């Protein structure tokens, strides 16, 4: 599900870079992790845990095997803020170590795998009333949250590819969501199983979710993350042909790029324009970071 560079247009990729960057900054702020607190090694080591857990696969049918993806599990245990930060680190590490996913497409990958999975998984888990007490309810909430978080994040991936004009939405949604609907069963069962095991063996670890309380706005954000792809999915399923995305694209001036066909718009006349736009985005991010740093220096100064 890691999108490599080259499959997304610059506009889609860079705007998702901005979105994910903002989300990371927000989560880092909300998690309010003091750099000498014990949360720092816990988050880092749990990132390594996700890597290691993916080594523990088990055979399904034929030659294929399944393993845990882990975003939902982490966000239930650590809370969505710290959980999404940890998953963002995992995605960053996968891009840097294993070249899973591109550098410019990093924002899109962090969005799909960390932001969407963690927030939607956590929201669904809480909506279903999963709590640390254990029992049947915890198992059901864990399973549903794990399954849905994977489906939603994979349909986000298909949606982005379609927005960029790389793979048509119908093909992308059918293959990505279809495949992940199957893989998601394993993910859901493992999430539920691990949560059940944890609540029996070390129930104290389930209550570490004290980092960054989940407020009203977070709820609204999480519901949006869940509802938006779900709405698109429902529409794609009900109307089938013609592609609902095309209608969406025709209506929105921001997104005409892909709608009008990538042939016309990525002609050479647009080359300089593209570079310019990417440059402006980079400058914007850079100046934001600089401003923040200056502000911090002023505050911490004498």
């Amino acid at each position: 599900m890691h999108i490599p560079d080259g499959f997304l247009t610059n506009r889609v990729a860079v705007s998702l870079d901005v979105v994910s960057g903002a989300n990371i900054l927000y989560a880092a702020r909300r998690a309010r992790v003091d750099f000498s607190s014990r949360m720092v090694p816990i988050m880092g080591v749990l990132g390594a845990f996700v890597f290691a857990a993916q080594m523990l696969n088990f055979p399904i049918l034929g030659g294929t095997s399944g393993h845990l993806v882990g975003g939902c599990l982490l966000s239930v245990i650590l809370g969505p803020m710290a959980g999404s930060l940890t998953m963002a680190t995992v995605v960053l590490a996968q891009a840097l170590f294993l070249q899973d996913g591109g550098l410019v497409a990093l924002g899109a990958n962090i969005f799909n795998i960390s932001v969407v999975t963690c927030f939607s998984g956590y929201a669904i888990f809480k909506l279903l009333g999963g709590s640390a007490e254990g029992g049947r309810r915890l198992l059901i909430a864990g399973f549903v949250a794990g399954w849905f978080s994977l489906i939603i994040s994979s349909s986000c991936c298909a949606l982005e590819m379609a927005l960029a004009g790389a793979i048509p939405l119908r093909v992308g949604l059918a293959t990505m969501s279809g495949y992940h609907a199957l893989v998601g069963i394993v993910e859901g069962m493992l999430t539920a199983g691990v949560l059940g095991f944890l609540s029996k063996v070390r129930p104290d670890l389930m209550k570490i979710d004290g980092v960054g309380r989940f407020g009203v706005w977070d709820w609204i954000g999480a519901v949006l993350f869940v509802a938006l792809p779900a709405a698109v999915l429902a529409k794609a399923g009900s109307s089938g042909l013609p592609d609902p995305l095309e209608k969406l694209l025709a209506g929105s001036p921001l997104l005409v790029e892909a709608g009008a066909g990538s042939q016309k718009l990525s002609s050479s006349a647009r080359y300089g324009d593209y570079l310019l736009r990417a440059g402006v985005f980079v400058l914007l991010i850079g100046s934001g970071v600089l401003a923040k740093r200056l502000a911090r220096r002023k505050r911490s100064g004498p």
Partner: protein
Amino acid sequence: MRHNFIDRYAALESPLHILEPRSKLLAFTALIVGVLSIPVDRGSLFFVYFFATAVLMGISQIPLPYIMGRSLVILPFIVLASLAVPWKGFYGIGILFVRAILCLILLILLTNTTRFVELMRGLRKLGCPQILVMNLGFLYRYLFVLTEEAMRMKQARDCRRVGRAPFGEELKILSSMLGTLLIRSFERAERMHSAMLSRGYSGHFPVLSPRRFSWHDLVFLSGITLFIVLTVLLR
């Protein structure tokens, strides 16, 4: 278990390796953005970028088979994109492949010519939030430890059972293993934290002998800038 499968060639001393991490990160990002911005109807520009990438590959002294092997991660996406041939035609998909492969090779070159600690320092200096960089550091350092733990658990499981258990049973075993691994990770993190505190940790890791910005970086950065400006002008 082999421990250096991640940055096996990062400790060489080629002209690419001795660059300061920040300038390398910036230059490679610029190159990737350059590749991504090549318009579809200017296929010849791909050859120009391919030539530049080949030159960088030569300078880096990383063996070609290694780079090729690493490029295979893109295969699933190629299969997925092949399904879209009826919509976009062979030319469009071909361009997609070339673009993706070029970006991938550039990324492989970047990460395999930079030691991990340096990469982290570069990311931090470029404004990446400290919490993310620190998490990345812990992840890198404990990745091998936990992976080894996971492999040991897997070996133990495989030793104790003959054949295969039913699906549900298999899942139950696996989730208990994952739960155990999770608990061990937690406990390791807490031990580490007290060890770090007792050694005077204050939220900052010093780097021994970091690479400094030198005339190499100046030459490299101006070369890359010149290259990108030329490709824009000559398009």
